[in-house]
């Protein structure tokens, strides 16, 4: 209820802002909805959303897989932590734009370069979050698994992974929103389709309606993923927490 009211305030502000600034600078929700509809009817909206979504998912999966593996390694092995830490600091402070531009120069204006660049941007934050989780692992449970000679994979799946889950969820949450923002930059600079590309075109034409139509469409997609995928998964994984004796 409170969320709905908050959303209503958002739309009200938008309408008032549009009235004050004029349709040219800030088109109202109805104009944007019209633009969305016409883009959807021509099919362009779905092609571009699909292209962007595919890039987001690939880069996200790549960064999360690598980040989880390296994060666990650095959290568990002090040597890996010391060796990896300077690299991590460099990567963390490298601006996304620099990575994208360099990837395009070195790898050409290719899909691989775009996805790799986005993944590299997300990687260090994933590592840092998962490393925190790996450092906080409960050694008493680890000992239990060792005494009972639990096979490695089973111990990882049932003893280690559940402890890392909150950290993985946090990394995934922040990761998804970060990745799609950087994917747009990569598309703007060197891809022939996708939301970022469309926004680039709209920018050249000063077409604010189209910019908003694409941006909001994709925000809706990310919100849907968050609501229907990330949150239910999180609830399922933490259901043991919310049942007091």
């Amino acid at each position, binding site marked *: 209820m409170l969320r709905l009211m908050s959303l209503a305030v958002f739309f009200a502000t938008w309408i008032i802002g549009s009235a004050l600034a004029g349709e040219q600078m800030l088109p109202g929700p109805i104009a944007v909805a019209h633009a969305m509809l016409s883009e959807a009817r021509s099919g362009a909206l779905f092609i571009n959303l699909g292209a962007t979504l595919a890039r987001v998912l690939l880069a996200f999966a790549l960064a999360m897989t690598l980040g989880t593996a390296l994060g666990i390694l650095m959290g568990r092995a002090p040597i890996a932590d010391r060796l990896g830490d300077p690299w991590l600091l460099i990567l963390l402070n490298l601006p996304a734009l620099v990575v994208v531009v360099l990837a395009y120069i070195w790898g050409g204006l290719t899909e691989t370069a775009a996805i790799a660049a986005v993944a590299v941007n997300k990687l260090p934050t994933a590592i840092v979050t998962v490393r925190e989780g790996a450092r906080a692992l409960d050694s008493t449970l680890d000992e239990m698994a060792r*005494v009972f000679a639990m096979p490695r994979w089973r111990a990882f799946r049932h003893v280690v992974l559940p402890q890392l889950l909150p950290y993985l969820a946090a990394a995934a949450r922040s990761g998804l929103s970060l990745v799609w923002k950087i994917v747009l930059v990569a598309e703007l600079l060197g891809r022939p389709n996708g939301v970022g590309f469309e926004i680039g075109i709209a920018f050249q034409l000063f077409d604010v309606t189209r910019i908003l139509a694409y941006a909001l469409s994709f925000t809706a997609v990310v919100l849907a993923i968050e609501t229907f995928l990330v949150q239910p998964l999180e609830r399922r994984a933490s259901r*043991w927490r919310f049942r007091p004796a």
Partner: protein
Amino acid sequence: MNDARPVGDSGLLDVRIARKAFRSASGARADVLRDVAFTLADGEVGAFVGPSGCGKTTMLRIVAGLDQEFDGAVARPPGTIGMVFQEPRLLPWRTVEANVRLIAPAIDETTLATLFHSLGLATHRAHFPGELSLGLARRVALARAFAVEPKLLILDEPFTSLDRPLAVRLRDELAMLVDRRPVTTLLVTHDLDEAVRLADRLFLLSARPARILAAMPILPPRAARSEEVVASLEAAIARQQRTLEA
């Protein structure tokens, strides 16, 4: 310095710890265990009694293979170890049943049902550890240790911080389980009563660094020990304990 060699197919546990030291934060070496050597025969229950902080848990960690940094050797019976730690150490994100099944995947439904039933856990199978009282959680830990059908059972003060009646009940359940399926058992406790009622052989440990002060068989067999026998044994051992410590 240390090795763990299996001794045939028997349930023999042979422990020879010449020395175990910890390095304190200031860098000084402090001995925790000194010349702790004993042997438990197949199916024998050995109880160690000693003052708290004397190094009992350290000894158990060495016997369990969790601590490899010591002078000496431990020969464990070949096969699985079942251990009950001082805290239950259950996986909070798995149900009671899953906690046991994950450790003992080969267990069949009948055996598991019997085990749960005898420990009063039959109605708690689907509960998560966070929903259990400490007493129940300790019972799950016991169930887990028995479910693996261990060749060696290690119990680290399994009933501390439980109220007296509950501790007594759990102790009797443990005695029953051990009698039903004999297993070489190493029990550490500071409760003489618990030790006298459960053990075949009793070891008295000194204060730190822990040495074995005395080793004595407890007769008659567990099932035949009457309250009077237990009381007189306890009195005798307590007397001996005082003379040894003096």
